[in-house]
């Protein structure tokens, strides 16, 4: 059973259709990235998952419970930080957490544990109004993690954080996943964030999911690779490469030749070049990064 199932969801605001049939699921233990430019429909999707907005069509379930028909059971398994974490500024961090703990009937020890986890122990009794943005983000995460959720939703979680804050945040999420075995759904327009955390990623733009990719070590897994070659004589390289069947799309970039090749065909190409007496100085595989894929899908889609 999926931890989160979003089934063919549509939503219009006024006359404009914001979400045009989104369909995906997040499995247990997965860190799922939701990538897209500003205004693509990420936050609207998240608000529908949390139950703040009703979809016009389609259904959403969390851990098997429908968010509209069985909202309380669905939200019991959900921890979410939607956009900026908003807490009661006139209350202390602890008072904020205690309120959630009361509603969810969570023992006191769990509050202390989660405060420890987000490293707020020495400021937890201060009023939230006095917190820095980074501390608020961490408190928001603590609020979301308090109920030991099966699904953790983070919407632009590192917005406005400084680099060390981002690293801290990432570690907290990774620890949480390890300790609580939570599935995480992260929406972002910051690629490096997703790249370093996620195991699967969906690209969204104009209210539609354009593509879904698995990430291994932050890279998109595909049937082809890109290589770059520096060799001489320069003039003959293109012809030789073109003659190899597994190669396509050879481009010269300065002293380098780039080519898209079928996966695992690098030795064959090297052999072909050597046979033609070409001196190879460098040959390396270009990482097929998320950024490239993002540009292809999002920018190219315009």
């Amino acid at each position, binding site marked *: 059973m999926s931890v989160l199932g979003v089934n063919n969801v549509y939503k219009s605001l006024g006359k404009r259709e914001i979400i045009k049939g989104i369909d995906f699921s997040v499995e247990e233990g997965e860190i799922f990235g939701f990538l897209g430019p500003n205004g693509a429909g990420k936050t609207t999707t998240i*608000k529908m998952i949390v139950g703040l*907005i009703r979809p016009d069509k389609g259904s959403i379930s969390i851990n098997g419970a429908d968010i509209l028909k069985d909202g309380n059971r669905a939200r019991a398994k959900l921890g979410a930080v939607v956009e900026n974490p908003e807490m009661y500024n006139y209350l202390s961090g602890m008072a904020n957490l205690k309120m959630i703990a009361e*509603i969810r009937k969570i023992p006191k020890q769990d509050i202390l544990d989660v405060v420890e986890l987000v490293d707020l122990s020495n400021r937890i009794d201060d009023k939230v109004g006095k917190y820095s943005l980074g501390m608020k983000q961490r408190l928001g995460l603590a609020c979301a993690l308090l109920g030991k959720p099966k699904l953790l939703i983070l919407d632009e979680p590192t917005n406005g954080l400084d680099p060390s804050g981002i690293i801290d945040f990432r570690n907290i999420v990774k620890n949480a996943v390890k300790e609580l075995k939570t599935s995480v759904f992260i929406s972002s327009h910051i690629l490096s964030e997703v790249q370093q955390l996620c195991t699967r990623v969906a690209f969204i733009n104009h209210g539609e999911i354009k593509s879904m990719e698995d990430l291994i070590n932050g890279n998109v897994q595909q049937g082809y690779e890109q290589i770059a070659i520096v060799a001489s004589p320069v003039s003959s390289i293109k012809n030789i490469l073109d003659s190899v069947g597994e190669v396509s799309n050879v481009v010269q970039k300065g002293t380098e030749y780039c080519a898209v090749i079928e996966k695992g065909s690098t030795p064959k190409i090297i052999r072909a070049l050597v046979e033609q007496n070409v001196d190879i100085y460098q040959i390396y595989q270009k990482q097929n990064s998320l950024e490239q894929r993002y540009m292809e899908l999002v920018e190219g889609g315009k």
Partner: protein
Amino acid sequence: MAILIRQELYKLFKRKKTLVVIVGFILLTVFLCYGIKQNAYYMEQYSKPEFQIQNLEDNIAYLEKDMENIPDEIKNDADEAKLYQDRIQNDIKMMEEELKMLKTRVDENLSWKEILEQDISEYEKIIEENKVIYSSGDLASAKLELEQLEYLQDKEIKPQENYDFNAFIYINELVLQLGQVFLAIGIAVFAADMVSGEWTPPTMKLLLAQPVSRRKVLLSKFFAVSIAAVGLIILIEFLSFILVGSLFGFGDANYPTAIGKAFDWDLSVLLEDGTHPLELIDGSWKIVPIWQYTLMLLGYQGLFILTVTSFVFMISSIVKSSMVSMGASVVSLIATTIVFQISSFYGLSKLVFTTYSSIGEIITGDISAYLSDPNLTAVTGILILVGWIVLCYILSHILFTKRDLLI
């Protein structure tokens, strides 16, 4: 649910604004108390027998001078002049009688019981003599007066003067004055951000991401703000009652008060404008001790506070900014209060809750005379207020549970 209500109360009392409103209300109470006391003091000055005697003597002297100066138009008409002088003579005679009575009272140093006895026989005489001349309403009013005096005599309670000051007089006056506009404004400021305050900043997201239904969130907010508003106002009034009582005395808790007066059109009389006068119905009232009246007053005030709170709560659920909801609440409450006091709206005004801010008049029944509507009774008032509460809450509920939260 109990947890949610407690949390809402906790949040409410943690807000600075709540403290400001409470302190403001206490100061207002102290201020009004001072005003009521001061008023009683001035009244006493004017009501002293010495002052009244002086006043009557001055008036008589003035009228005697008038007797001499017959206006020029009627100087030559003997009949007219005679009529004029007779009339003044009559006035002087009445004043002299009153003066005599006052003087005997001062000279004889009558006890209040003897004065009460005199007053009772005076009223009995008036009723007997004027049975035919008086309108039914005036006769009923005189009978009511007599009944109250007899009650006093029966229970051996010293009649209050209009300048007396004690805790019961104070609290009744306080409820009257608060009802005019202070309660509405106070509640508007107090309750206006109960729902809207969670949009700016949007803490509602945190609350609604928890496993609680929106229905319960709204209901707990409504209970919390109602408990706080009714509780605080009545508590502060009660404490000030105790304080005033221990400083200036409580007065007699059994003092008679007439409630439930009913009125009806006197169809036997046609007024110049073609309508009939609204007259008090004989025997429609009931005399109750003032402690009972005061309890009814506070109970009814509680209901009125609840109604205003529901109205403000509804605005708070519609509007998404606490500043706007506060402004809208204050303005709409003041506007309805003023608009429905204009006579041309009288027909509608009995359906509007702000009309029932004069709580004392509803319990005594005087509201019928005030709004020229014999059908307006305390029960109608209660039904209309309850209707408003239900209506406002249903609207809030529909808005809050159905809307998309695009914060």
